[in-house]
């Protein structure tokens, strides 16, 4: 328990009169919940401050918006992050993606170290590293004999995934797998187009070159919404 040196206020209903929203500052409010009910008028008299909060937050009358375009907002602030904070020390270069989320999932540094780069002895059941730096204990469920992992991102989805190209032999199976990987319906395959970055660094539409050529030159994949 805390060192309580008269810090704790007796529990008062906070709604009574301690609303700093009427202090003359135009409070920034995010999306809908407040402004449509609490009129942020600087000239409000003190009587009007005492609006009951039950009244103020009557959910039925609030236009609670649909799921926010949070990703747009997130991307803006992520670009504000300085370079050094985007690298958790243990991540390989592959992991330092522009959309990488710092500190997520919430695992302590010590455990993160274990996931990437723990030596896997032959005595264990796991097969030895998969050719990528930082290969941890992969489950071995969906791996070919010579796994070729490339990173895949889908437009609008935060976390990237990895796909083992050695398990596929055509663009069709690959696209279907990817669509499924991101939780989209298989019928929606036509709504997406697959692009890839080749070893020259150029982003190309997948499907133009023979499969073998593609597999040899692909560095990473991106699934975009069709009609962009």
């Amino acid at each position, binding site marked *: 328990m805390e060192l309580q040196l008269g810090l704790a206020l007796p529990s008062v209903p906070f709604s009574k009169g301690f609303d700093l*929203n009427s202090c003359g*500052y135009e409070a920034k409010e995010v*999306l809908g*919940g407040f402004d449509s009910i609490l009129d942020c008028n600087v000239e409000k008299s003190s009587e009007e401050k005492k609006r009951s909060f039950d009244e103020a937050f009557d959910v039925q009358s609030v236009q*609670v918006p649909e799921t926010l375009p949070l990703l747009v907002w997130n991307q803006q602030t992520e670009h504000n992050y300085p370079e050094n904070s985007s690298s958790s020390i243990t991540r390989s270069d592959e992991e330092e993606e522009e959309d990488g989320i710092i500190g997520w999932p919430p695992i302590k540094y010590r*455990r993160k170290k274990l*996931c990437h780069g723990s030596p896997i002895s032959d005595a264990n059941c796991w097969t030895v590293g998969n050719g990528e730096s930082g290969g941890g204990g992969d*489950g071995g469920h969906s791996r070919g004999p010579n796994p070729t992992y490339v990173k895949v991102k889908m437009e609008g989805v935060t976390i990237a995934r990895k796909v083992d190209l050695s398990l596929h032999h055509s663009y069709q199976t690959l696209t279907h797998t990817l669509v499924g990987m991101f939780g989209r319906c298989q019928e929606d395959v036509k709504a997406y187009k697959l692009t890839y970055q080749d070893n020259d660094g150029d982003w190309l539409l997948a499907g133009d070159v023979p499969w073998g050529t593609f597999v040899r030159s692909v560095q990473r994949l991106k699934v975009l919404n069709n009609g962009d």
Partner: protein
Amino acid sequence: YLSNTSTLSTKMAKSFPEEVLEHVFSFITSDSDRNAVSLVCKSWYEIERWCRKRVFVGNCYAVSPRILTRRFPEVRSVEIKGKPHFADFNLVPEGWGGCVYPWISAMAGAYPWLEEIRLKRMVVSDEALELISTSFCNFKVLVLSSCEGFSTDGLASIAANCRELRVLDLRESEVDDLSGHWLSHFPDTWTSLVSLNIACLGSEVSFSALERLVARSPNLRTLRLNRAVSLEKLHNLLCRAPQLVEFGTGAYSSELRPDVFSNLAGAFSGCKQLKGLSGFWDVVPAYLPAIYLTCSGLTSLNLSYATIQSPDLVKLVSQCHNLQRLWVLDYIEDIGLDALAASCKHLQELRVFPSDPYVVDPNVSLTERGLVAVSEGCPKLQSVLYFCRQMSNAALVAIARNRPNLVCFRLCIIEPRAPDYLTLEPLDAGFGAIVEHCKELRRLSLSGLLTDRVFEYIGTRGRKLEMLSIAFAGESDLGLHHVLSGCESLRKLEIRDCPFGDKALLANAAKLETMRSLWMSSCSVSFGACKLLGQKLPRLNVEVIDERGSPDSRPESCPVEKLYIYRTVAGPRVDMPPFVWTIDEDAALRV
């Protein structure tokens, strides 16, 4: 009124000598009871403060060392916490603060008889360790939990100078590991060791020094080795310490040799008091049977570094019928959790960590089903930390109904904003059921797709909730308002990447003085709102943590990167790094 009180006090003082009151107070150990006692009247305040022996400071910036030492002159044991919890996940920039030296320096003068120091998330320098080692002749217990800033040189000072040391516990601290030589600084005459935890150290300590240390410590109860201690050497230590209660192995791997195996198994079976095991890096499954004979007595098992598959985990865990606490990787899978539910009826705490957290595809077959099974089969389960990749409202409702005795529920669905995988709806109803049924819930961490609705449930039903962690959740300020205007017992609130802005914070400003702290990062709180809070609430420190440069260089409406608000009687910090700003009463920006 005043004269009545003083007459009463005088009467009391005459009829009840201080020594008697002091004796009575010595039976009161809980801090909250002690605080209550000190508020009864002035003389009780005085008597209590003179005899308080143990102090807990939940936030090192809430009070100053001088205030502490002035009020409580006879302290023997101190516990102090520094950085906010999200520092564990790299969200607090390096150099933010939490330095312990000023505390040690003040206590060195005020508490020559200090015996115990426990620190969590603090920056501890070698100088601080050296000062500890030379200032307190009766020093017995040093626990450094998730601390950093010191090297093995600092440990050498402790080893060399603390003649009465009983406990050296470096729990998960980041130590600059220069060499293992520090252990040899413990004098040969020193035999009072009770607990040694060096699991976080990287480099090898001198094994012969360790052996001799263990051999001359008859009171040794807890020994947690680091990864560098090889498996073949374990039996040497265990044979010299058959009285061990808690043991942590090093790397649990070696070439399979029958003599090594039988030595190890023999040594383990000699430890009849063993209740807890940990360590198990790099496990070779063939060596696991060496501990089978200890299983029936085990109450605590930490396999969270053991990269072994489900069948091996199941064989082990099914023998631990008295297990109360299990930490394990998700290699255990649903099938392993079924076995756990069937075998371990005394289980109280379960933590399942992700083996491959950065890939969204499941690499193991661990889903919500495993947790539901444990909630059904383990009637005493009260604390859960669970990382998984899919969850449903139905599962959460089942868990809530099965286990209304849950006290701590932390769920991390790895993909942010993942919906109920069956219905694609938000998980509001599921978490709502948790707070509805689990009336004793004190700690909750949310994840998955969540609207403002879940916060309405939490605000109204989470009456005993003390700590709440929120990430990638909510839709508007309404969500935050529900929490701040409800949750009567809330002490710590930490939020990241949520669309919460100024309004809810400003509307519930007074709430912040009843809490230990609020952390918000990657939200939408503007600098202007921070200034207003800092101005109007002098008993709060409102820290703006922003690595983009001074907030004055941007419009006031611009959201801050991170903010950390905590109540304090110590006033603004004097040790802020350049990227932390607080606001004065006159709204001046102070660095």
